[in-house]
């Protein structure tokens, strides 16, 4: 198969951040990581061209994917490979969008990036294979990409064993036995000791290494956070009641506690009547202030952060968590109490 390879300006050798605004261009040969990929693909598949584009241009310009697609189609290639973008956000988004556009245009398309790259969500319906975190893992990543290219080129679909990540398209197929028989088989497999046997794998929440303990809370700056949708009356930031697309921050300074009417929960996943009668039931400001005044808490961070944890995607939730941690660290906060509804 004739393959076209999409990379950013950095991997095309054009330049770094100072060249992130350059528009798309074509080179009639494998370039950068494409050279190694070409050698892994052997004689069966040829990289006939490399299309590259600056990260800013490609990720922040709505027309960029279509523009890049025109260049891809002009090369006469039957297949597009984008990346690997590892954990680079703009590059990953560009790789995802370019792969999606190529797939919709009828090309075989594949993107490669880290499973947590926001670009994974942009690639659908094109498949994404997971890579390592950084270009230090380029060698092993390209071997995986080459195997995926060969498999896709032969008309097969990728599976999680090939490194497929992101939303896995559902396809109907005829099972060998009916659901009742499969359920009994699965129960027997589990009883025989395979505790993870399943037809429907649960989402992987990853693992976060717990932070070390605070040496002395009576000297620490502590933040109060909640996913309970608690906002000042009137919901000035328009926080959603479900599938929150954002988190917000509101002041706590000067408030001894929260009062009925001053704050309300907009959470759509439970009855908020009880919480609204006394918002300290969601965010325990009243007793946190007391403990601060008594010296058990060094000081309270002057704001609280809030989102709505109701049908929120794991990816969005993880992103809010990372942003909260970064912001709190920047503000010198040593520990946080996050209430969960």
């Amino acid at each position, binding site marked *: 198969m004739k393959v076209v390879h999409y990379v950013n300006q950095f991997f095309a050798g054009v330049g770094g951040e100072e060249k992130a605004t350059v528009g798309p261009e074509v080179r009639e040969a494998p370039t950068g990581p494409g050279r190694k990929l070409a050698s892994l693909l052997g004689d069966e598949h040829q990289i006939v061209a490399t299309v590259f584009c600056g990260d800013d241009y490609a990720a922040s310009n709505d027309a960029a994917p279509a523009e890049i697609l025109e260049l891809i189609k002009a090369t006469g290639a039957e297949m597009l490979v984008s990346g690997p973008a590892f954990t680079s956000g703009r590059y990953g988004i560009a790789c995802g969008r370019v792969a999606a556009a190529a797939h919709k245009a009828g090309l075989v398309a594949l993107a490669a990036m880290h499973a947590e790259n926001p670009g994974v969500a942009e690639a659908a319906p094109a498949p994404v294979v997971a890579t390592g975190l950084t270009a230090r893992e380029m060698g092993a990543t390209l071997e995986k990409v080459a195997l995926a290219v060969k498999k896709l080129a032969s008309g097969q679909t990728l599976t999680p064993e090939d490194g497929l990540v992101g939303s896995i398209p559902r396809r109907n197929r005829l099972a060998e036995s009916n659901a009742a028989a499969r359920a009994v088989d699965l129960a027997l497999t589990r009883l025989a000791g395979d505790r993870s046997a399943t037809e429907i794998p649960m989402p992987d929440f990853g693992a976060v290494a717990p932070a070390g303990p605070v*040496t*002395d*809370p009576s000297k620490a700056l502590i933040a109060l956070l909640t996913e309970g949708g608690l906002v000042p009356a009137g919901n000035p930031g328009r926080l959603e009641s479900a599938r929150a697309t954002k988190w917000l921050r509101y002041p706590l300074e000067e408030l001894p506690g929260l009062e009925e009417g001053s704050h309300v929960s907009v959470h759509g996943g439970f009855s908020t009547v*009880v919480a609204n009668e006394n918002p300290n039931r969601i965010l325990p400001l009243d007793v946190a202030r007391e*403990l601060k005044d008594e010296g058990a808490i060094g000081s309270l961070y002057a704001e609280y952060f809030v989102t709505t944890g109701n049908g929120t995607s794991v990816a969005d939730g993880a992103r809010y968590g990372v942003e909260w941690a970064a912001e709190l660290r920047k503000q010198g906060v040593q520990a946080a109490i996050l209430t969960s509804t």
Partner: protein
Amino acid sequence: MPIAIRVGAPRVVPTRGIPYPTGDPALGPKEEKAWRRLLVQTALRAISTPVNKPTVFKPGELTT
């Protein structure tokens, strides 16, 4: 609480109900505030304790 442990929250203080994580409307105002205070004190105990995996800190009798 089983969800918090399953998703890997490092330090978890179990409470009494989803709609009121730091309250309990079945109690009188004074008792409820004491319960909330105990939860926050338990949270302070949790953040001062080293953990290497998701760990539950039960609200218990505290001397402070």
